[in-house]
Structures are given as structure tokens and as C-alpha cells.
């Protein structure tokens, strides 16, 4: 009876691990897919409507509650206090288990350029970063499809294998 319970627990643990890894890849893929939407919104709002940056940030974050919205909200809050954060401060705001160090640096650099120049150069800069994000997004999407699915399946298989061994 105890061995069945232990086997079931191991199965659940492995499954949970697989789901966790899949979730990690999914969150990353969604984060970078959505940052592209964010770039499109910025280009539209800055070039056509000249909407103030904080308003754009708030509107975007309001649409969906996810990791990117969390970061954007935190950044908007800093700006609305009339503070210009240093790069290190922005990196701190962006710290997340779902992002790698070089990605945090890239996003921080991107946020740093927002609102600091005329609309033409703003749009050009945003497009430049959008291209970079698209590359990361593509890789993150592929990783989710391949490694995320693999981790999920491996979690199930490992769980079953451990359960058989224990039982």
C-alpha cells in the first residue's frame, strides 16, 4: 500500500516537473510574442497619436495580466514618480525566472530608449529592437514546441517508470 502511494507521489512529482518546464517555455514564448505586440502598439501610438509614454504603458499592461504586464506596470510606476531609472534599476525591475541575463539586458536597453527622442527616431529605434525581439521570439517559440513538449512527455514517462520500479 505504501509503495503504491510512493509510486503515485513520484508520478505526480515527475508530471509536475514536466508541466513546470513546459510552462517555463510557454511563458517565455508568450512573453516575446507579446513584446512584439507591444512594439507595434508603441509605433502606432507614438507616430500617429503622440500618446504620452506612461499612458501607453498603462494601457498595454491593462490588457492582460502576465509576466510582461508585470514588468511594464512596474516600469510605468517608476516613470510616473518622475524618476528616470538607471539601467541597473530597470534590470532589477525585469528580474524574472523566465528571462535570461542577456534578454533582461536587451529589454532594459529597449525601455531606456523609449520616450527620449523625436517620433521619427523613436519609431526607427523601436523597429530595430522589434527585429531583435522577433529573433528571440522565434527561438523561444521553437523551444516551447520542441523542448516544452519533450519535457512534458519525459515527465510522464519518467513518472510511469519510477512508479513501476517502486510498485
Amino acid at each position: 500500500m505504501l509503495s503504491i502511494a510512493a509510486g503515485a507521489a513520484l508520478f505526480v512529482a515527475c508530471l509536475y516537473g514536466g508541466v513546470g518546464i513546459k510552462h517555463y517555455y510557454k511563458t517565455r514564448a508568450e512573453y516575446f510574442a507579446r513584446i512584439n505586440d507591444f512594439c507595434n502598439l508603441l509605433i502606432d501610438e507614438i507616430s500617429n497619436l503622440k500618446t504620452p509614454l506612461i499612458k501607453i504603458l498603462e494601457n498595454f499592461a491593462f490588457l492582460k495580466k502576465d509576466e510582461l504586464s508585470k514588468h511594464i506596470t512596474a516600469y510605468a510606476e517608476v516613470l510616473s514618480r518622475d524618476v528616470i531609472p538607471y539601467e541597473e534599476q530597470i534590470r532589477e525591475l525585469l528580474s524574472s525566472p523566465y528571462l535570461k541575463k542577456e534578454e533582461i539586458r536587451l529589454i532594459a536597453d529597449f525601455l531606456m530608449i523609449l520616450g527620449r527622442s523625436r517620433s521619427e527616431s523613436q519609431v526607427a529605434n523601436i523597429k530595430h529592437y522589434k527585429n531583435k525581439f522577433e529573433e528571440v521570439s522565434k527561438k523561444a517559440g521553437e523551444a516551447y514546441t520542441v523542448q516544452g513538449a519533450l519535457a512534458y512527455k519525459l515527465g510522464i514517462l519518467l513518472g510511469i517508470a519510477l512508479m513501476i520500479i517502486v510498485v
Partner: protein
Amino acid sequence: MVKNLLSKSVYDAVNSSGKIPERLFEIRLRLGKPLVVYDRLGGTALNYRVCERDIEYVLNVASGHSVYAVSEQLTKGYVTYRGGIRIGVSGEGVSEGGRLSALKNISSLNIRIPHEVKGCADDIKYLINGGLKNILIISPPGAGKTTLLRELTRLYSDKAYNILLIDERNEIAAATDGVSALDAGDFTDIMSCAEKKTVYENIIRSMRPDMIVTDELFGKEDVDSVCDIIRAGVCVMASIHAYGLQALENTVFEKVFYVFDYFIILERPGGKILVTKSPKKQI
């Protein structure tokens, strides 16, 4: 308010000099040059060299982190910040089709901090007590013309006259989100950040003011508009940059002698206020 606008190093430099940033009249930042502050006693160069980051900081904060949204204002040479703070800018102009389309490499900023001085018009209160009049305040820059204009507006407003204040650069009433930070009176309607001509043409009929107040007449177009309004029966109180009445003679501004009733002349901050009747208009 001023603290938010300045980078920490600039703010610390001002503070350590013994000056109180909020009491200053002007803070001048010139790239690579010493920071200069002006108070009642005059200008003082501080032991701090302004760097590019300091200038960027001010522009970013003043524009609400959206420099792209104020680029048109920048081409006019200024950007406004909360509380009526006006930041004059100069740099490298970019022309397109014969007109200034953008300003780049901004190298100088002049942060002007408004001060509300209630009672500064007490000596000339008799003008207000005598009812509505067309009044032109003449003074060189920095002599307190806007402060006096605000005070006179408040005094007229307190007498229950409907005043339409055209605050083109948002430094008379310093309205933020429709609420004025500086007291321009309870009977004053404020139209801020709009060009004088647009307001003259569109708003006057709908607001039906007893008096229009506006700052800094500049060029023939402004003068012509003001003359038209006075001829239409609405009183105007305005200001103009000049050293005395003579500076206006034989210029495009000469028309003002025929439409304004009184001229108030300021020569320096806190100096004597001189009131004179129009030499050419029969009152």
C-alpha cells in the same frame, strides 16, 4: 516640483551652494558650462559643470518621458512642466521647407520657476477699481511681467468680471489637468497651450468674456488680433517685451497706442511700477 525636474547631481549642486531651489527664479544649464542660478539677488555660477545627461534628464521629466510628444513645443523654443515651470531650450535647428521642423542636440536650458506674488499690484489697484480697461504691460524679459499680469487678472476676476485667460505657454495659471496651480481668480476661464489666434477666432464668441488676458504679444498677427478684439468691444489686458513706450514707436506695435487705454511699465524685478495713459488714444 523643481526637485523632480533636476537630476540628483544638479539638485545637490544647487542645494550645496546654499540656494533653495524652490525659491530660485531661473536655473540655467549650458552643456559643458557651469550651472547658473538666479534669485532675487541676481545670477550665481555654481561649481558644477553641466553634462549631457543633466539636460536629457530635465527634458525627459518635463515631457513626461515622451520627448516625441513635445517636439512641436520644442521647435517653438520651450517646453512646460507642472506648476507653470517653463523650460526654454536652444540647440541645433533642423529646417524643412523653410520652417524649423525640429530641434536637435539641445545644449542649453533655461528653467524658469514662476512665483505667485499676491499684493504685487496693490500700488495700481485704482486701475481695477475704475472698471474694465485695456491695459498693456511693457517690460523687458524677467522683470515680473507675468507675475503682475496674473495678479491683475486675479483682482479683476475677484470683481466678478468674466475673464478669458489665454495662457499660451501655460505659465500664468499653470493649469494641469484643467486645474490651475496658480491663482488667476474664480471668474477666470483658462485656455492653456493654445495659440492666441485660434482662441481669438473660435472661443471668444462661445465664452463671452468681459476681458481677455494674454501674455507676450509678438509680431503683427498678435497685435492685429488684439486690435480687432478691442474694436469688437471686449477689453484686453496683455503684456509685451520692450524697454518702455518709445521702443514700440514706429514699429508694427505702434497700433497699440490707439487701442490700449493704459500702459504699465516695469523696468526691473521688484522695481517701481509706472502707469501711464495712452499718449494717442482719447479716454
